[in-house]
């Protein structure tokens, strides 16, 4: 008899305890990020769309069209052609097919001139056709400072472009 009553009481009590827990969660902040309005702050080293970095003084592409990235790319999605000789050699056209890219970062690591970076924070790579995702030199041309392996932090005087680039959203967002 006592056992019977005690078990009923314990069942009842455990329900109350679990209800207390759910009530506490009812009033905690939701962790959802309302995506198009709010954007998450990506880590600096998140691998996103490529950018061809520039020399901040001369505003010229650092790339010398050495073809290293095109050769190491496992997906074979980088194509480029250069023009000029020696130090003046620059790419004539430079195409990365993001349909194929697997974001392995090999092209960045192999580049001897720190001329390509994937730390751009541009992750909204949608397109209405496949050709939309084939980026040419103009699209990938850096418009300022982007962090790279050699220069992960912005130099004095240049505003960091990277993670804040797409939405300028503040991480977490409003509750």
């Amino acid at each position: 008899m006592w056992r019977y009553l005690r078990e009923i009481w314990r069942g009842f009590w455990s329900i109350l305890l679990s209800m207390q827990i759910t009530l506490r969660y009812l009033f905690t902040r939701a962790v959802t990020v309302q995506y198009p309005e709010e954007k998450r702050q990506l880590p600096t080293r998140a691998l996103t769309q490529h950018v061809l970095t520039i020399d901040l003084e001369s505003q010229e592409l650092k790339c010398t069209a050495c073809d290293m990235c095109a050769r190491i790319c496992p997906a074979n999605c980088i194509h480029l052609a250069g023009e000029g000789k020696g130090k003046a050699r620059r790419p004539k056209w430079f195409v990365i097919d993001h349909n194929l890219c697997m974001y392995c970062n090999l092209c960045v690591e192999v580049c001897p001139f720190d001329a390509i970076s994937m730390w751009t924070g541009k992750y909204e790579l949608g397109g209405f056709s496949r050709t939309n995702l084939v980026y040419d030199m103009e699209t990938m041309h850096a418009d300022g400072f982007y962090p790279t392996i050699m220069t992960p932090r912005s130099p004095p005087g240049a505003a960091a472009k990277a993670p804040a680039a797409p939405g300028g959203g503040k991480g977490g967002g409003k509750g």
Partner: protein
Amino acid sequence: MVSAGALEQFYALFEAWGIPWIVPRLAIMLGVVSIIIGFISVSAMFLIWWERKISAHIQARFGPMRVGGWHGWAQSIADGLKLLLKEDIIPTRADRPVFILAPIVVFAASLATYVVIPFGPGLIVQDLNIGILYIIAISSLTVVGIIMAGWGSNNKYAALGALRSAAQAVSYEVPLVISLLGPLLLVGSLRMTDIVEYQGGTWLGILPGWLIVVQPLAFLIYFTCAVAETNRLPFDIPEAESELVSGFHVEYSGMRFAIFFLAEYANMFVVCAIATTVFLGGWQGPLLAPWVWFLLKTYFLLFVMIWLRWTLARVRVDQLMHVAWKVLLPLAFVNLGITGLLVLVLSPMG
């Protein structure tokens, strides 16, 4: 709604114009029914939205946020419209008349119970002298509709769900009724307004005169059974999405499904309204208007029901029967016996 005298005058007016007596009565009936259906729909839509919000926040999510601007308030309206526009599918092998009739029976049963819910003094469609009995009798009709749905669908999951639902409803109706008998013994009347008026005073001068103060056990038993009656978690084995793919309404789509859904939320409102009336003092309360108090208390109970749903896991069938027959029923009898004894001993006629 309107006092009897005004109604008589209304009828007399039509009689004077030589219109048959049935016309004004039908007009009044239709008016009342549309008001009730309107209330049921709005409250069900609000409840669905509210439930989604509460469940989401309990899981640290937002729930519907897009439709209608502020926190997705129009989500249920959009869902209802979508269900209206959907194709109405009747399976080929289904028992057509039964299949079509089932949602109507379920909805009619819950609609009929609204007749005796006292929203406030005078705000009651028909103050029957057997109010509680009427509600209990009518609301058990829901099971008939559910069995019709399960049988008519000609689907094994639907049939299983309907059978489980029948077993559950039959088991839980017994402690439910017996738990209500305790308070009714104290009140000495089955009329809803009498029950509410009985709770007007105070107990010992400090506690509100609500019957939950003297009948807490009965309230708990009633509330547990009410959750089971409305097929909600943790007693939702007739619907059990994960094992029966929604049970009895698995074959229903479009508007017929919406009617089942509406009836379920209407039923939730009814059981909470009864709990409010019998245990929480109905419309009694200071300052605010009576109907506000009534709705506040009812929605608080609804909140507890939703809260329970998102806290507890589904019980097994044997556990379900165990709770009903070995726990709730004996406790309800004990409560009834003690109450009866005390009423006998303490009553002035003694």
